[in-house]
């Protein structure tokens, strides 16, 4: 039974980690921005989802439609906030050193966190109905929420969708070209600014989707983005900054490390993810899927 529990818990936690990390690695891969504000976008997604569902339920609409409302609220919130931040702040700073961009996005994180507090206050918001809606199924004597399995499905859809978009659509291939060489892509007529705006908006939407998917399981309170950015950063460092396959593998490594510890050696659970990160960095300092890069002189 313990093995089944480890498999399910590892899968579930890996899926959640992938959802919270993939937007971060996408933005870094294309824009070379380590986006510390990612945690704030996650929190905004959770808050907007909680507010939207609050309105939805109080209107007495069918409960099943709440899932559509969750998705819509995350898409709208992520897209609007992402485009706004990109247009107002980041566009003026392209070309700056990566360290400066880290500081800028850290400042954005603090500003957005306070904006969240100003908008929603410090009281908790609850939208637990979707989590209980489908009930649970039993694996042996282990009841497991269907909602948690849906999150796994959501992560798989997000991963496959992102892969398809990057490899099978014109915009995605242009984005890949920008990742390969920004200057050559621009010289070939690719509108890099537009690609950047789109990338940032998609990364923000992914963070907001992760927040919306998590909202029914937690008390949505100020500060929920802090832990998330640390975990997301650990996952993308394991996989290699900017690598989407790396985010998949990083999430699986981190998710299963934690699940195994919880079931086998709970006293080490606190360190599990960071231990994996330390081991990976000791062997491959740029992460598992980091591309080899020539050194510019």
């Amino acid at each position, binding site marked *: *039974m*313990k093995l089944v*529990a480890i498999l*399910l*818990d*590892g899968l*579930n*936690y890996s899926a*959640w980690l992938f959802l919270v990390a993939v937007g971060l690695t996408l933005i870094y891969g294309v824009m070379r921005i380590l986006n510390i504000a990612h945690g704030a976008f996650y929190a905004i997604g959770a808050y907007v989802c909680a507010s939207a569902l609050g309105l939805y339920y109080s209107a007495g609409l069918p409960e099943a439609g709440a899932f559509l409302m969750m998705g819509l609220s995350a898409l709208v919130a992520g897209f609007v906030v992402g485009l706004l931040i990109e247009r107002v702040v980041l566009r003026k700073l392209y070309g700056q050193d990566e360290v400066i961009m880290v500081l800028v996005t850290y400042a954005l994180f603090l500003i957005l966190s306070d904006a969240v*507090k100003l908008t929603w206050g*410090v*009281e*908790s918001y*609850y939208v*637990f109905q979707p*989590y*209980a809606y489908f*009930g*649970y199924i039993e694996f042996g*004597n*282990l*009841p*497991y*929420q269907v909602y*948690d399995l849906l999150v796994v499905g959501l992560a798989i859809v997000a991963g496959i969708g992102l892969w398809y978009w990057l490899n099978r659509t014109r915009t995605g291939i242009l984005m890949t070209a920008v990742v390969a060489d920004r200057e050559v892509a621009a010289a070939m007529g690719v509108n890099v600014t537009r690609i950047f705006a789109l990338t940032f908006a998609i990364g923000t939407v992914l963070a907001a989707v992760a927040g919306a998917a*998590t909202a*029914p*399981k*937690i*008390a949505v*309170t*100020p*500060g*929920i983005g*802090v*832990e998330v950015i640390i975990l997301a950063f650990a996952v993308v460092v394991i996989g290699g900054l900017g690598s989407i396959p790396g985010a998949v593998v990083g999430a699986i490594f981190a998710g299963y490390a*934690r*699940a195994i510890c*919880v*079931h086998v050696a*709970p*006293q080490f*659970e*606190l360190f599990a993810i960071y231990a994996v990160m330390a081991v990976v960095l000791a062997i491959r300092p740029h992460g598992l899927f980091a591309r080899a890069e020539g050194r510019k002189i």
Partner: protein
Amino acid sequence: MTLKTVLAGTASLCLIAGAVQAQDQEPITLGIPVFLSGAASGPFGLPQRNAAEVIIAELNAGNLPAPYDTKGINGRMVEANYVDEAADAVQEYRNMAEREGVDAVVGYTSSGNCKAVAPLAEELQQLTVLVDCGTPQIFESVVTDPTYLFRTGPTGTIDSVGAARYLVDTGVDMSEVAGINQNYAWGQDAWADFTGSLIALDTGSDIATEQFPQVFAGQYGAEISALLTSGAKAIHTSFWGGDLEAFILQAAPRGLFARSAVVMTTGEAAMQRLPNEIPEGAIIGARGPYSYFAPESELATWFRDAYEKAHGQPPSYPAWKMAQALLGLKSAWEKAGSDDPAAIAKAFENLEYETPAGTVRMAIGNGHQAVQGIAYGTYKQDADGNPGVENVIAYAAECVNPPNDTTAAAWIEAGFPGASCN
């Protein structure tokens, strides 16, 4: 001595007297650190700030019932400066004590923050009243010879000892016991005291699993699976704030409460917030005789009514503890009859005073640590869906607190020597 000199001297004396008079009229400024952001803000910080606002406003207006029916503290009005406990606790404490020069600091929920500021209170000779943090380490190992530091809320020891006694007294199957507690001083102490109490009570329990997730982790799916598959008949948790609420939201739909008797030592703080999500029968504590467990008194009725009138809902236990801290400070200050911090601290030592939650005795920690009894009950909603408790058992302070000269761990390990239970 000329007439001019006499007049000048008289005028100077008048000015000095006037200045002294003006100083007497200056309000007492309290620094009140409570969580205003983060997962603890909703269930802890806001009720504490709300309670402080109610108590201070009503104290200044002289509206409290006896024995607190005099205006302000020692006739001086009281002002509050609220600080976010989620910020750097040490930095903010220094700001309050050294830059703002507050007369007293009254607050803190996190045991980690209490441990961080406790030595500072003595170093800076700053009158400080800890409100809610529970780790017994404060006066057992962090500050062993206190002068200016007090804690008016009981230690977490009573939660764990009371929980173990309640499980035994209500006949819960204790053959397999599990715990899920946050991985820092609070959670570790709570679990150690609880398991120690089981040994002292000779329950013969086996530990099925002990989980220590990171504080504010929010995701407990794997831990809940571990609890579900552990075969535990009883589960102990000292989770608080957003962590407790997330745990309830994730564990209840998976049937954990139906499979095991779950005792939540801080569960009362979630009752008003998640009335339909806490399963009936869950074992609830309030970290002392607060809220639903408070003994009836004029002061308790007044506090409930005043709080509900101001904030539209009944006070949860963190609010009761804030009220208790402020009334303790008023009692000590007025007993001292002086504004000298050393005199107030002296008067605070071994103080016995009335609160909305009954009598508080500063009986341990060399007279700096409060003792109170504790009660547990099972969660129950009434016909209108209002949250409440039933099957309540109350334990006296002498039953769940160690004596003054013994650490909690040693007292539990020795089998509660000197404990007097009703």
